[in-house]
């Protein structure tokens, strides 16, 4: 017969101080792990949702990022007339020649300067990115020194409000609008007219990349291969989704460090939980012997103590998750090794992260609780009663 769980809950309540301290120790470990996992989840979200499966990004063969060099603008008409490209209302193909450059902007909180990507695009570039919606002001006018800023830039950098001017490259740029692309990597960019940007960075007559919007995902795949197969072009097409998936790799270091930190802290907490459970067993040796005498079997004693340890760690997990909630949505930036610039992303608490945290805590509880529970179940009845 199983020992009721209420027995364990009462025992945990009885020794409040010990329970709370052990649970807090586990909670701190869980908080740290959850923090790191939520960070990674946010990073993934930012990059994964950035690509549009029907957009094809064309770059020079061998380039790994839009920053790496460029190709002659004379190839643009050829690309524009490839089959499978969607047309806008006027019947013009949705193709945009673009430049991405990196500029330095001061952070709002005064903690230094950060590299930020500036994208020069053609008006079609706005149409082929329907996820980017204007939230304030208006889009830039071609031929003017105007930029629109992504939501994250607007939030994190000074002078990035509508009506402000930003100073970079060969002079001042007027901020005329703010756009939101739903937390994607574009939110960390400034957008302006491609010709103006190319002129300011002495890069006229070439593009770093050309974006083509295909009619459907199948056409996008065909378009990608058509670009690569054309020997005259010496260009390479990538689906936008693939391109951003590659960039998620910049989270690799965080992931590695996070795992190491979480595992080491978990080992430490398991030892602490083991200590508490051993003490619980020692205090109750007479009680355990009594339970045995009135007919509870060894397996049910073992189960009961393991459950008690699990309850303890579950309490820790709940406290740990609650502790992290105020930080949910907090944003931070991460340097991208491919673009040299900062992509802003938020701490993203998901059910998956919470579930992983609970499982993580339960493993700690199990590791810490099993040996003491085993010890309790193996106790000799007579010796315990005499103690």
């Amino acid at each position, binding site marked *: 017969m199983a020992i009721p769980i209420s027995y364990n809950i009462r025992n945990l309540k009885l020794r409040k101080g*010990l329970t709370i301290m052990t649970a807090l120790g586990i909670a701190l470990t869980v908080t740290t792990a959850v923090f790191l996992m939520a960070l990674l989840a946010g990073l993934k979200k930012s990059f994964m949702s950035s690509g549009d499966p029907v957009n094809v990004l064309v770059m020079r063969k061998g380039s790994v990022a839009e920053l790496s060099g460029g190709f002659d603008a004379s190839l643009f008409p050829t690309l524009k007339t490839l089959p499978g490209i969607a047309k806008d209302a006027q019947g013009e193909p949705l193709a945009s020649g673009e430049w991405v450059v990196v500029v330095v902007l001061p952070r709002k909180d005064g903690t230094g300067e950060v590299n930020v990507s500036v994208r020069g695009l053609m008006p079609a570039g706005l149409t082929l990115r329907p996820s980017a919606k204007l939230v304030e002001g208006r889009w830039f006018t071609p031929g003017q020194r105007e930029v629109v800023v992504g939501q994250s830039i607007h939030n994190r950098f000074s002078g990035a409000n509508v009506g402000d001017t930003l100073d970079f490259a060969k002079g001042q740029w007027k901020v005329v609008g703010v756009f939101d692309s739903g937390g994607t990597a574009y939110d960390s960019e400034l957008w302006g007219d491609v010709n103006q940007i190319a002129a300011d960075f002495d890069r006229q007559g070439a593009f770093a990349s050309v974006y083509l919007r295909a009619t459907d995902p199948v056409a996008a795949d065909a378009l990608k291969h058509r670009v690569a197969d054309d020997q005259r072009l010496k260009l390479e097409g990538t689906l936008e989704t693939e391109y951003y998936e590659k960039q998620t790799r910049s989270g690799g270091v965080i992931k590695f460090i996070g795992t190491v930190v979480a595992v080491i802290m978990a080992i430490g907490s398991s030892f602490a939980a083991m200590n508490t459970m051993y003490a619980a067993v020692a205090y109750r040796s007479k009680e355990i012997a009594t339970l045995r005498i009135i007919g509870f079997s060894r397996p049910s004693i073992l189960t009961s103590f393991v459950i008690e340890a699990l309850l303890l760690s579950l309490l820790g997990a709940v406290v740990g998750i609650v502790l992290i909630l105020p930080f949910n949505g907090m944003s931070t930036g991460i340097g991208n090794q491919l673009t040299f610039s900062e992509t802003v992303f938020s701490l993203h608490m998901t059910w998956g992260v919470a579930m992983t945290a609970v499982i993580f805590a339960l493993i700690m509880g199990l590791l810490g609780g099993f040996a003491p529970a085993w010890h309790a179940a193996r106790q000799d009845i007579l010796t315990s009663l005499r103690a």
Partner: protein
Amino acid sequence: MTITRFVIKSAFRNKRRSILTVLSITFSLLLLTVMMTVWHRFYVDKGDAQSAQRLITRHRVSLTQNMPVYYREKMRTVPGVVAVAPTQWFGGLYKDEGKPENFFAQFGTDPAEIFTVMTDFKIPDDQLAAWQHDQAGCVVDSELAKKFGWKIGDRIVLRGTIFPVNLELTIRGIFVAPQPSITIYFNQKYVEEAVSFAKGRSGTFNILADSPEDVPKVAAGVDAMFHNSPEPTKTESEKAFQLSFINSMGNVKAFILSICFAVVFATLLVSANTMAMSIRERTREVAVLKTLGFTRQSILRLYIGEAVLVALTGGALGCLLAAGVVIALANAPGMGFFFLGMRVTTPTFLLAIFVSAMVGLLSAIVPAYHAAKLDIVEGLRYIG
């Protein structure tokens, strides 16, 4: 029995509990020491003396913009400048492109002057001369050579990503850097002759100043010289330049600090828990000690000494493990520049030991105080 022996005996009277506590503290302190080492490396360590004498100039607008190479000759006229070498990041791919462990820094430079600027990079004279005579030659860091099994005379191919050219380089020399630099240098002329837009441009300039004290003056001098030109510069010390890359990883400072705080607090909880358990168990013993004439102060001291001893044992073990972990991290493949040449320094060790002692002290204060002011009769009657 001396007091010390008494403290040691009582600290380990319940072996299992003491060992578990020590191990728990060990792992926490291991993490704390590693974090403090990272902190030290990034924010305290000013680099060696020679590094402190160097500066790096880049385009004011951004690192990805190049500057005219004639800036180099103008920079020489700035007071305090001893030598200037241009460096251009090549960013090529070696062997299997997807693998981060195949990543290393590749700079196009001027073989005539780069080792004059990098005073602490040692290369045999004959190898340097051989490199200077071969435009398609390169010199590689000794650690990198060891990792890839490169020897002098080997050929390596770098596939260009920024510059549309594949470099076929012959290794002419192997240099030794004070800390592994995972860098190779080749002659920038090779790239310039293959790629028209690379001609006459340089991404960065490495400057050697005549003393570390002159570094701020040189930085200001260089930037002032190009302030009103169409392509202004930004000059900073080598360390500051490197730090700007680390800062681009996000708010690393807050990140490390919050982990350290969580670890210390968790350790404190563990230790306090153990001490509370252990002292409460001995309520009757305390009463006996008092009957024998031990004063409150000495009882307080006994218990605090016991806690500090346990915490110190854990702390010392944690430090030793941390030294091993840091070495493993520094040599781990695919970590890029992050942990390169990192090791636990003496001040970090001392700080970690101090923290563990403090944890022991703080964790014992409350239970030891209660034990010290215990009423003898009450204590003798206590049945646990």
